[in-house]
């Protein structure tokens, strides 16, 4: 690691430009999907709400005062990390964008999309173990090597890091939970192990950062940021656990509940 601290932002804020374009495209695409599928059965309003709340979180992390503050404050950087890598993916997954796309497209093109989602490459990348390694591995690389420093010094590197945090978090969340159809949903056991493993890796990394501040970050700032990563991460992690286990609860619902309870009450079980 290099002892150069406070590297000035080089040139125009590349991240801001790309983020604004991506947010506008994301907002317009979902609206277009809603419009194209408006003749079909009603689309739950909470999904639409989740999509735009997710875009707002992504915007807060990449454009505006928090993104500006994260250039100099590790705690602000970590707030942006939790927003972009954890809360945004959860909200975007709950918005069921794949379901909306399949509803909005004509049948022939929708079939091509679902064939692409079932392709071997999509199955590999969509597997929770692969997605979990991409997400956790990216974080470890970012915070335990000189990458954190370089992401602040170079706009293209910073852009790639932000994109990876969002996309890997999205991929992992979608592989674990959510209303969208999944081409090869892993078993509950595999998803539970991956989620627990990811939460463990995330909390170990937070404590490691508490003790080992990245280059150019003060000890007090690193400690505040590490605790934010740990506790704010917990809130999203517990929400993911509730969604994952409630999926198991719904999937194992007995076909006919009433007779079992009647038999039990009358002693005929």
């Amino acid at each position, binding site marked *: 690691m290099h002892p150069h601290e406070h590297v000035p932002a080089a040139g125009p804020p590349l991240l801001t430009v790309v983020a604004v374009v991506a947010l506008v495209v994301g907002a317009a695409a979902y609206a277009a999907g809603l419009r194209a599928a408006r003749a079909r059965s009603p689309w739950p309003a909470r999904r639409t709400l989740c999509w735009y709340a997710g875009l707002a979180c992504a915007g807060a992390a990449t454009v505006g005062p928090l993104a500006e503050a994260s250039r100099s404050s590790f705690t602000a950087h970590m707030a942006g990390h939790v927003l972009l890598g954890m809360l945004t993916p959860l909200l975007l997954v709950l918005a069921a964008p794949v379901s909306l796309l399949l509803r909005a497209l004509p049948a022939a093109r929708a079939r091509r999309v679902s064939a692409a989602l079932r392709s071997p490459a999509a199955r590999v990348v969509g597997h929770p173990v692969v997605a979990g390694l991409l997400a956790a591995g990216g974080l470890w690389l970012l915070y335990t090597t000189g990458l954190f420093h370089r992401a602040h010094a170079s706009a293209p590197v910073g852009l790639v890091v932000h994109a990876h945090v969002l996309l890997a978090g999205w991929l992992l969340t979608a592989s674990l939970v959510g209303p969208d159809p999944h081409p090869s949903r892993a*078993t*509950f*056991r595999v998803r*539970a192990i991956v*989620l*627990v*493993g*990811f*939460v*463990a*890796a*995330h*909390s*170990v990394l937070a*404590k*490691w950062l*508490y*003790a080992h501040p990245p280059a150019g970050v003060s000890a007090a700032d690193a*400690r505040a940021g*590490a*605790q934010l990563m*740990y506790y704010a991460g*917990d809130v999203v*992690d*517990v929400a993911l*656990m*509730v969604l994952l*286990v*409630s999926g*198991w*609860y719904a999937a*194992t*619902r*007995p076909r006919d*509940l009433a007779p*079992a*309870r009647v038999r*039990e*009450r009358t002693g005929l*079980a």
Partner: protein
Amino acid sequence: MAGRDAAADVTDDAGARDRRTVLSGVLFGAGVAASIVDLFVFHLGLQWHHFYDLSTTQVALAADGVFHAVGWFVTVWGLFLLADVRRRAEVSWARWVGAVVAGLGGFQLLDGVLNHKILGIHQIRYEVDLLVYDVVWIGTAVVALVVGLVVLRRARPGRPRPAGPA
């Protein structure tokens, strides 16, 4: 975990339902001790525990992360297992409460012996004589574990028998 077939077994088999009731209670009790009691009582309430005392080895740090993740997961999973038993049949609440108390005591015992003393992840409190804290911690854990096991035994399904030693 349980697929459709296993779910059908649980509906029809009182023994499987009872095992699921006990599993739910043990997981929830241990999870509450690991996540909620630790966070709200010792970190936020008493402020005896520190976020990270910087004395930990790499192995202990990794073990701590796994405990943390598993603690939250089994808290959530234990409650959904209880809901699952409840939608199929009447829950034996004495059995479930006994399992919760046993799980809580069991986890505190593990925490007090393995985490505090053997792995040395963290201590109960800092800059005090630890012996009395360790004795109280491990003692209350053993009491909770024994009480939980006794309640579990007394609430056993099937023919009532005189309660023996736990």
